[in-house]
């Protein structure tokens, strides 16, 4: 198991009131899975992602990442795990402004002590992988939203992580570019990288092979899903034109199996 959580809780104090953002979450995610985490806002899905991304620490419960108990680690050690093993993709891209695409992609390598020439080489290679090699010198402001998100994905990939965490990666994108980004994530998943996407859009969640539904800090459903093929949907959309999107998306999507209920839900 890449991710093993047991009875995670997270309590925030907002003045007098206690907010239970996580109220006992036990989920295992195996290496190579493509998981969509769904739920309304305030359901605890973002907190869950922050905890498994080692950005935040749980109030109680156990979390093992790649077999290592994360609870006992110092902030510097957590930074090391984020640096080497986890790539982040955010809704607002979070690229450094007025900084070239390739410099943005290099950023994680800066903190793992990779020499300058190797940093550049690896960053350019990842930009090529996301199809933006020719834009490596452009600043974020000179790139479209989809291109910016692909730069962000290249940055997430540059340190060859085991896990990519994407928080609403298509939230700021139109539907066509959303498909492009999801196709890219699916391709990376086929290459062996575990992907966890937080989203509140069912369309986006359908590209995942497993759906985790959150409500009130708990996992209320854990289902297997036969994923739609984003690349195929994109191709269909391009040939059929804008009117056929819905049809294409439906055609590319095998029916979900409601009988299958996730054994991974233990909480």
């Amino acid at each position: 198991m890449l991710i093993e959580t047991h009875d995670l809780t997270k309590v925030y104090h907002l003045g007098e009131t206690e907010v239970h953002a996580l109220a006992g979450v036990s989920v295992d995610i195996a290496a190579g899975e493509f998981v969509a985490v769904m739920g309304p806002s305030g359901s605890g899905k973002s907190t869950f992602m922050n905890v498994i991304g080692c950005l935040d620490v749980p109030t109680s419960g156990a979390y093992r990442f790649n077999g290592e108990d994360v609870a006992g680690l110092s902030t510097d050690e957590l930074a090391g795990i984020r640096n080497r093993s986890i790539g982040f993709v955010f809704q607002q891209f979070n690229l450094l402004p007025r900084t070239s695409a390739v410099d943005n992609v290099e950023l994680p390598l800066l903190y793992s002590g990779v020499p300058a020439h190797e940093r550049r080489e690896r960053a350019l290679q990842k930009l090529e992988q996301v199809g933006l090699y020719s834009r490596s010198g452009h600043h974020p402001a000179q790139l479209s939203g989809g291109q910016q998100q692909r730069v962000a994905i290249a940055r997430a990939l540059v340190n060859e992580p085991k896990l990519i965490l994407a928080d609403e990666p298509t939230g700021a994108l139109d539907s066509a570019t959303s498909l492009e980004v999801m196709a890219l994530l699916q391709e990376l998943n086929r290459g062996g990288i575990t992907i966890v996407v937080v989203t509140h859009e069912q369309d986006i969640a359908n590209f995942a092979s497993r759906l985790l539904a959150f409500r009130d800090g708990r996992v209320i459903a854990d289902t297997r899903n036969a994923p739609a093929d984003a690349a195929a949907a994109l191709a269909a959309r391009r040939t059929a034109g804008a009117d056929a999107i819905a049809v294409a998306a439906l055609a590319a999507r095998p029916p979900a199996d409601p009988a299958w209920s996730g054994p991974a839900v233990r909480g």
Partner: protein
Amino acid sequence: MNFLATLRVALSALRVNKLRSALTMLGIIIGVGAVITMVAVGAGAQARVEDQIKSLGSNLIIVLSGNFTLGGARQGSGTQPTITEDDAYALQREVQGVQVAAPSLRGSGQVVFGNSNWATQIQGTTPEFLEARQWEVASGKAFDQSQVDSAAKVVLLGQTVAKSLFGEADPVGETVRIRRVPHQVVGLLERKGQSMIGQDQDDLVLIPITTARKRVLGGQQVKSRNVQSITVRVRDGADMPATEQEMRDLMRQRHKLSANQEDDFFLRNLSEVLAAQEASSKVLAYLLAAIASVSLVVGGIGIMNIMLVSVTERTREIGLRMAVGARGRDILTQFLVEAVTLALIGGLIGIVIGGAASIAVGYFAGWRTEVSMASVVLAVGFSGAIGVFFGFYPARTASRLAPIDALRHE
């Protein structure tokens, strides 16, 4: 994260906000510039005092005749002729630290050339006097020992005397009458200027001591070997107080004074007066530097202010850097390097401006200014320290942000 990479990150962050970085640096630029200029002005003033000391002779000791007691009233120094030419020769010969010792006989009288005349001080001495006072001859040449031995009627004119008698014409080779005795002018002394108490040092004529004794000043002095003063130059690097003590011992021995008798001569040391002057000019220099450094501190506070704004503004950037693996100390270093870079670049520009301002002050105000290497080194060090000191708090604030809060910051 290695240092070079940190430096590049810091520089690019400063480049992104060019105007703001420039304005922030302005405080340090003005501060360092002011310190450099003020120290240069102060050092210039000090150097001028030191030059004055040099022109008077900082390592001069004057030996004067002692006093005598007349009906219970002790008379002033020099009232009793107790020191002799031979004392001078003995001092030069026997005291290790003495470079030269020149005996002087003084009087005053009229010097006449053609139909103009001038009352001045007539000083009979030996060629060593010029060496003791570090006095050069502007034209012609000084009289030599053989002219002293033969009591030659030769004279060296001071600038004031030469101007009064000859105007701008060259007096060398002319004959003047000193107290009616004709003397050939062999040389013109260089200008020495006013002494520190306002005396015109150029208003005198120098003649061989033998000539003065036998032919010019005359009177009772003809037979004796007495002189009024001995001008002693102490060797460079010699211990002044020790030399003075040796001289005193030798003089007492020569004058056959027993242990319970007072000295029958005086030793005057000019350096004490001048040391006080030098100290006061040093105080001035420190004062100027202290005032100037206030603006450096103000500049430092400007840096701190901007760094705090910058940390708040770039909280999301900090969050992102932490998310991709920056540790607290990476963030700390980044902001610290940024602050120090601001301060150091400001400091370097300040040095250039301060140096230019010093030259301008020297040129337009006519003051002497000296930009010292020490003040430059101090200014660079100080501005670096200001960067660290005032940059540390904002940098630490940044490094202690929780990554998740920083990422969510709007």
